[in-house]
């Protein structure tokens, strides 16, 4: 007698059309507008020479950064969220105040790392966001470990991490996914397939350009969603998080999107990115699409949307002022915090 085939790595059945209330949708809109405004302002500050290093924008990927963070529990006892470099919105939604993002970019004392790390290498225990050592798949094994801690303690918390298509070529990605599947931990992996890793297009990165298929290979239920549709990302994420909380093991979501600029503000992407693709994806801008859905499908008053945009403008303005006014940590702090006991020889 043959054993009946058992489907261990299925693409999950699409969840029944979720009812996202107008209030929820407007909340997502607020976070997306805030994300974009924060990034636009930060990019300007960089261009004015007021932010050191470089600037890495997530423009065009706000639907993912906001949609994946919104269903999570916030706070030190909430869900672990380890977003990658395009997900400034995730940090905001998960609790990091806007002014502290600017303080982080500026290296001020009020930065989440007290000036010890820069740009989107942000972390804070109060938000359960691990500090980001590298976004190149490094955080995947750590996220698996956090999820393992929750499982071991019987807590219904979830650990989430996101990464780009380039990260799927790294060993950490494969080792992390494999261990997550074997240990059946409550982790959600969000792949943001924006089709570019620095100057390398997805076609030169991998032969399996549908990234969710890689997760299926490890026995992790995986789906793909339209990464420029925040409602779709939010629904998929809500469903995946519920799956994890129910103790049913890890999930994987691939969000198909497009990187709307260079890897960083310093690279001349015009030299390697086809301009017609940029134009095509510009029409699919996630913020425009949500606005359209709010106005046309939900008949929400334009004045209400304008109100949100004005509120955000004020918030960002105040945040930059506060970060500007903040001081730098005392140079003596450079020598502190390596070990738990302050007098330990580093």
């Amino acid at each position: 007698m043959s054993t009946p085939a058992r489907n261990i790595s299925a693409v999950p059945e699409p969840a029944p059309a979720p009812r996202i209330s107008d209030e929820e949708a407007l909340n997502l809109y607020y976070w997306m507008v805030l994300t974009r405004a924060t990034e636009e302002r930060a990019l300007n500050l960089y261009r004015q020479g007021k932010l050191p290093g470089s600037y890495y924008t997530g423009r065009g990927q706000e639907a993912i950064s906001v949609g994946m963070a919104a269903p999570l529990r916030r706070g030190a006892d909430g869900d672990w969220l380890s977003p990658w470099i395009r997900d400034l919105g995730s940090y905001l939604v998960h609790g990091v105040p806007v002014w502290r993002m600017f303080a982080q970019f500026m290296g001020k004392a009020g930065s989440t790392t007290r000036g010890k790390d820069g740009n989107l290498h942000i972390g804070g225990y109060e938000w359960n966001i691990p500090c980001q050592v590298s976004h190149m798949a490094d955080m995947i094994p750590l996220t698996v470990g956090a999820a393992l801690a929750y499982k071991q303690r019987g807590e219904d918390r979830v650990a989430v991490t996101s990464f780009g298509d380039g990260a799927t070529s790294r060993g950490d990605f494969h080792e992390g996914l494999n261990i997550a599947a074997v240990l059946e931990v409550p982790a959600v992996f969000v792949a943001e397939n924006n089709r570019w890793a620095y100057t390398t297009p997805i076609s030169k990165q991998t032969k399996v350009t549908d990234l969710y298929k890689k997760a299926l290979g490890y026995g992790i239920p995986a789906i793909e969603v339209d990464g420029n549709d925040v409602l779709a990302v939010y629904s998929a994420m809500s469903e995946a998080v519920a799956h994890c909380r129910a103790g049913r093991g890890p999930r994987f979501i691939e969000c198909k999107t497009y990187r709307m600029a260079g890897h960083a503000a310093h690279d001349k992407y015009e030299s390697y990115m086809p301009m017609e693709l940029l134009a095509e994806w510009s029409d699919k801008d996630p913020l425009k699409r949500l606005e359209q859905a709010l106005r046309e499908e939900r008949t929400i008053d334009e004045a209400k949307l304008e109100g949100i945009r004005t509120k955000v403008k004020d918030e960002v303005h105040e945040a930059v002022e506060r970060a500007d006014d903040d001081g730098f940590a005392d140079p003596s702090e450079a020598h502190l915090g390596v070990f738990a006991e302050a007098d330990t020889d580093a």
Partner: protein
Amino acid sequence: MADLTYREALRRALDDELARDPDVFLMGEEIGRFEGSYKVTAGLWQKYGPERVRETPISEEGFVGAGIGAAMMGLRPVVEIMTINFILVAMDQVINHAAKIRYMFGGAVGVPMVIRTPGGAGAQLTAQHSQSLEAWFAGCPGIKVVAPASVADAYGMLKTAIRDDDPVLFCENLVMYNVTGTMPDDPDYTVPLGRAAVVREGSDLTLVAHSYTVQRALRVADTMSRDGIEIEVVDLRSLRPLDAETVAESVRKTSRALIAEEGWSTYGVGAELAARIHRLCFDDLDAPVERVGGAEVPMPYSKPLELAALPLESKIEAAARGLLAESGIA
């Protein structure tokens, strides 16, 4: 006092800590039913079950990273890397994550994780399986590196390492596993990290070593004692934090310092200590600080070649005699 092996002392420390703290758990390859490649986890899987003694896929980068994540969330993972040679594929996780997270979080979150791993040479395991890489890690701030050389220290330091709030690379030694020694009966016995120990007193020369090389150093001291030369042997025990003061105190007494290690001398433990000794004891020295390490080659396989590459007692003794001759003692 009871006589037991280094291996058994480590096993007891793991057992005691698993029993004491429910947040402690073990993770690694083949450590469960198979009881680990070197049987340090013998009986623990049966006693504590598969969640507390967690077997993993062959995936060092993955499970070291998972250990870090679990530690950040408050568990106390004790990760076994089968030998220190295999940690090389997980270097990014050890150096870029474990050693940096407390600092980069502004001190708020630590990584209370122990990585246990044996190193050392002498069993004809060849170049990629005979290395003593601990000095590489000790060169990096943010991770403690210890290397016990006795049965009592193996027990006492492993317990302290597990209770430590920072990452600890706990370097065991393949040759040490079967070495026997005495251990205090006190179940609360612990040994602080970062303190060297004078394990043999002497007046003519200070010989500093760590891990299995301490055993060699003690044998050299016994041999030379027959000629009336008294060597003081300092067991470093910890490479970071480094207890340079205990070494300096000894050198102030003997006026001569020799550092022996199984790893390569170049950029090694001896190089670091020589710099510290020159600064702390410049006026006390009767001869330049000397070092003996493994030959600067990948470890060869055949027994005669391997012996030629190891820092054997004969080489340590020759260096000691050279130092004494240089400063006027025959």
